[in-house]
């Protein structure tokens, strides 16, 4: 019983997502526009890095291949978010419109119904670019790939994605406390997260601390990459990524649940 529950829950999630994916794929032109556009967005960042590293061997002690790994982690986390959890972004709109009503009378967790409620096809472009960048980077970096290190990399990178998703959920859940449809916090935070596309060591101490402990975006890319690459004496910090991820998931879930108690539907 206890073992089949999570599997059934996950299967149901895939069912919801799959239904939306099929609906989204009906407009083939849209699919291509979104995929091409998201690839172009990520490509500009890569071109920037290429232009910079054409003139300098390292940035704050990081080589191009290493920076690309950091960069690709953010791109992949965003891609997973768009493709599989895009509904999270619609939470403020749903709360404002009273659209959570029916999700509250179905026997499936509200948070999962919300998160699976939309598909962002741009995620496909992000995952393609991010995957290619990561593959390119990992083939270049100077790392001894023991099975243990591979397992470590997988664990850390999955945790990194979880952190990004949790921050998004927690920030969109803040809409339960704020009135008004034009709710800007999640998008604004997402922009802050873009800072993590570069080694956080380039920033001032204040920003570095903020990205580490206040909103742990540095654990989405910089610290796990450092740990896997064994880069610098502080690289052990990256081993904390799964702990940080666990903390973020718990906090995000709690914020959502507390918020849901305040849900007021809408008065037509």
């Amino acid at each position, binding site marked *: 019983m206890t073992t089949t529950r999570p599997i059934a829950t996950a299967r149901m999630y895939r069912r919801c997502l799959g239904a939306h994916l099929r609906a989204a794929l009906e407009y083939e032109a849209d699919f291509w526009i979104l995929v091409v*556009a998201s690839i172009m967005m990520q490509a500009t960042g890569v071109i920037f890095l290429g232009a910079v590293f054409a*003139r300098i061997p390292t940035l704050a002690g990081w080589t191009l291949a290493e920076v690309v790994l950091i960069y690709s982690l953010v791109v992949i986390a965003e891609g997973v978010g768009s493709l599989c959890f895009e509904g999270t972004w619609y939470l403020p709109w749903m709360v404002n419109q009273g659209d959570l009503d029916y999700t509250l009378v179905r026997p499936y967790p509200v948070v999962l119904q919300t998160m699976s409620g939309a598909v962002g096809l741009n995620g496909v472009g992000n995952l393609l670019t991010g995957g290619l960048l990561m593959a390119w980077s990992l083939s270049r970096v100077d790392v001894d790939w023991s099975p243990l290190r591979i397992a470590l990399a997988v664990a850390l990178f999955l945790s990194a994605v979880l952190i990004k998703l949790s921050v998004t959920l927690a920030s969109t859940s803040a809409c339960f406390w704020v009135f008004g449809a*034009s709710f*800007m916090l999640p998008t604004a935070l997402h922009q802050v997260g873009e800072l993590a596309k570069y080694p956080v060591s380039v920033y001032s101490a204040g920003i570095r601390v903020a990205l580490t402990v206040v909103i742990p975006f540095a654990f989405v890319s910089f610290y796990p990459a450092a740990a896997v690459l064994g880069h610098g004496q502080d690289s052990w910090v990256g081993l904390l990524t799964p702990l940080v991820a666990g903390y973020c998931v718990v906090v995000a879930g709690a914020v959502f649940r507390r918020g849901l108690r305040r849900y007021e539907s809408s008065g037509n």
Partner: protein
Amino acid sequence: MAARAYLCMVKVSARTVLTYRANFVLGLFAVFFQLLAMLYVWRLLLESGKDFGGYTWPQMKAYLLVAFVTSSLVSAYGDFRMAARIRDGLVSLDLVKPVTYQTARFAETVGRAALELAVTFAVAGSIALVTGGIPVPDLPQLLLFAVSIAAVVPLKFLVVYLSTLLCFWTQNYMGVAWARTSLVALLSGSLIPLVLLPSWLQTTAMLLPFASLTATPAAIYLGQATGGEALGLLLTQAGWVTVLWVAGRLVWRFAVRQLTVHGG
């Protein structure tokens, strides 16, 4: 007669800009954090002593701030409303109004641009002060810069307008907007000074209208283009505005013909 109608639109749009403030602030936020990252990265890069197109740190700061201003202009999301009206067929209601559609949208853009300019210059100025100042050109050069910034408004409007017209053929404006944003960032020089790009990209950028959006005002501000050369750049801007304006009218006419053929 018509001129008064457009003037009225400018005023109304300037007054209603507050209804778009959420989107405006959001757009500003997006560009702001990119700016922040860029400022840190470039300070580090230039401290390394390597040559980056001859830019000094204060010059690069000035460049990034000019790029911040030009990227924030004409971003108050009138385009999303226009895209939605095209997609839902509501645009056919606009066809019967006694004003030129393109001019009307431009009038609205101008109304909002005033506030956008004020806010972005205030933000850019504060950042310049906080980070230890940037070089300021002499008065004649400053005037040329002002003209080049003024030209960015119609030019950027036309780039956005033309891409929004694509909605007559495609459903998804989001993707179109992203693609345009990326293209503009790369080829206007707002991502990185064009001289630092591979030469084929530089050439491409120079042959297209995008360089007039950021590279031109930046070059004039930094005094990289003075006198005749600066005037030449301004003329290029004017040329692109003319060409794209005509292109906009042509595409519109074509799109509308399609619309009426298919019965809206």
